[in-house]
């Protein structure tokens, strides 16, 4: 038969010491994590707008409006396009660079430090820098192209519909490929050398070794890197905002920009709450699915 101990003893006793230690963290987590979530949920069922601080219950009105908001679904589609293109390219380039730097090259540390620089730049600064680089008249990219063509080049990188996605993707990939590179370099460095030597002795080729030994060894790290970057790309904002503000029209508007415009420029507060909840649900499903897939959820 178990001895029942009063709650106060459980909390205040010696064994409760551990709860006392983690209590502040739990409290802060609840305060900054759970409370906003619950509050957003609450607001999403109300009718608060710029004009009307209507906190009465509006049922599913905001959620049904989501279904017919074509701009929202287009923004979601743009986000998915950015993610689906940038993520594999960053992964592939990061892996290639990591493979290159896994060997002890002369000046390796200096090159790695230089390669990592874009990651430490704030995305909004990166966006502003690329905006200058891509400037139609004074940007160096058009000037360099002009040297090759022999005439003035005035490509409208952030306006022309054919160039606007490549421009944003170039900036995004430039900034975040080094992040992939760093994680994958660390993972590659941890691959068991004895296994590689054994494979070599057994006559395994480069690709066989890579797919049978290296990839399985780095997969947990790679999966986490994909997950982190995938989530980052899903909330892509700064670079797009700095380069196009979601234009031309709403052609490059991401879900984050859409949410910002609705919430903080147009003050559609309750509707934005519903959008935020939609994003949280979508991302949660994706993350849980991904974690299960790579078996690190446990």
């Amino acid at each position, binding site marked *: 038969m178990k001895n029942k101990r009063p709650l106060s003893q459980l909390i205040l006793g010696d064994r409760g010491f551990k709860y006392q230690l983690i209590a502040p963290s739990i409290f802060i987590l609840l305060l900054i994590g759970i409370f906003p979530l619950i509050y957003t949920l609450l607001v999403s069922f109300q009718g608060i707008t710029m*004009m009307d601080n209507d906190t009465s219950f509006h049922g599913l009105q905001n959620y049904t409006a989501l279904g017919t908001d074509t701009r929202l679904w287009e923004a979601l589609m743009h986000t998915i396009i950015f993610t689906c293109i940038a993520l594999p390219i960053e992964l592939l380039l990061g892996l290639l660079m990591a493979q290159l730097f896994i060997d002890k090259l002369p000046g390796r540390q200096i090159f790695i430090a230089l390669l990592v620089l874009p990651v430490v730049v704030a995305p909004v600064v990166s966006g502003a820098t690329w905006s200058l680089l891509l400037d139609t008249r004074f940007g160096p990219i058009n000037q360099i192209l002009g040297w090759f063509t022999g005439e*003035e080049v005035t490509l409208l990188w952030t306006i022309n519909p054919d160039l606007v996605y490549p421009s944003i993707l170039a900036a995004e990939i430039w900034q975040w490929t080094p992040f992939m590179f760093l994680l994958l370099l660390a993972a590659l460095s941890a691959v068991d050398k004895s296994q590689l030597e054994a494979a070599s002795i057994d006559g395994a080729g480069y690709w066989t070794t890579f797919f049978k030994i290296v990839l399985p060894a780095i997969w947990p790290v790679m999966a986490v890197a994909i997950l982190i970057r995938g989530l980052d790309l899903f909330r892509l904002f700064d670079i797009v905002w700095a380069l196009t503000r979601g234009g031309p*029209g709403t052609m490059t508007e991401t879900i984050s920009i859409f949410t910002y415009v609705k919430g903080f420029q147009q003050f559609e507060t309750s509707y934005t709450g519903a959008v935020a909840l939609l994003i949280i649900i979508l991302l949660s499903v994706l993350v849980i699915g991904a974690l299960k897939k790579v078996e690190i959820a446990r």
Partner: protein
Amino acid sequence: MAGTTLSGWDTKTAVALVAAGALAVGLSGCGKGDDQGVSGSYDTSGKSSAEVAVEAAKPLCADGKTITIVWEAGLQSLDPIKFSGPKWTEATGCKVEVVEVPTSEMFTKIAQDYRAGSGAYDALNVIPAWMPDLVQMGALEELDGLVDKYGYRGELQNIAATYRDNQMTVDGKIYGFPDDGDVFLMYYRKDIFARQDLQDAYKSKTGKDLVVPTTWEDFISVGQFLTGALKKEGTFGASMFREPGYGNFMFQERFRNEGGKFFDGDMKATVNSAAGVKVFNDWLTENKFMAKGVEKFGFVENLAEFVQGKSAMTISWPPYGRFAAGYLENEEALNWVPKTQIAGKIGYALPPGGHPELAAGFALSVASGSKNKEAAYLFIQWLNSEEISNQRVQLPYALRDPFRNSHFENEGYKALWPDAKDYLAALGDAAQTGLLDLSLIQTDKYEEALRQGISRLWAGDNPQKILDDVAAEWDKITASVGTDKQKAVYESWAAKSGAYPN
């Protein structure tokens, strides 16, 4: 019975009621701040409005009160930081804290402060087109009572007509003092238009005299000709704002000068009418005789093009005229302005059509959540007064433009550079015929749709299709606000003298 009063209440109840009453009085006192009520009148006889404001503010500022004012970040805010703020502190004892906010965030910050009830701001700079939104929200204090109390109505009448009649009131009540003559003017190169060879060539080509264009058709004709004649010398016929944020203002001006109306009698958007399509098509035509990449031109790009002598005509806000004249170009705060190559060669005129846009601008308001409303009011009355505003509009580093009749006649201002009198005369003309920015409930949503349309124009979409989409979006916004409600606001706006050309 012990503890029982004559009224029958026991002592505890009585004490509780007294305490509650005291608390209520205390709380109401806390919330009241410096408000002394707007009723009654102040003895203003023989004093200027600036003197009245200073005298009335002194007792309110005796405890070293701080007035917090929201001001556009950058050059604009150098006025209260370097000039008017310290001057007010010296005169009254009230400190002035300037909260610098980028224009794009000003509405949001003001709205957030009001919604949060934090009372962080006392006085505000408000873009007049936002007034209906902010008034409806409850964020602005109605000023009629204080205007009457401090006898300011007379000086308000001396604000140039187009600002006074269009940018001060909502539903007939005063919510802000127009404080910035932000109006588009056309700037042109007098030396180019005076060249005999160009005059002869234009005459033989078109049969017309080469003069500053007063219609958009002439503007295109002259612009094309000048580009053809001067491109080898590195000068284009014209340059213009094309970046959508600025294009929004230019479209609104030009659309109405071409006869366009924003809505019909049923409040259905008509921005996609022939006038709108003509404006878009004309823009595409004009871009062909302007510098490549003009689609990206904002304030600074266009300014650089003009003051460096690379374009013969442009349209912009009043500071262009001062910058191009080289007025105090050695001022440290203006070191970002490209050095002018055309000082002494600039002419000033109304843009083609004759009805320039009162693009953005600023009015001074009092935040309804302020705990220092009266002191804040007195500060903005003082800023806006004849005496002080005449000094403020001449500050070389700030961007407040002439807006009072007396500013256009100011002899000191006329002497600031050789052509300053012509500049003031053109601004004076613009102050009679200017067109208001569209101002509705949720104006920014309408403007956002238009800005997106302009960006699609530069991306190559069809003008009619773009404007049809903009009109459809406007109709959706109107429906979401409530057609009848929005119609009433629009009709009130459209009834103002500056809504449409007469």
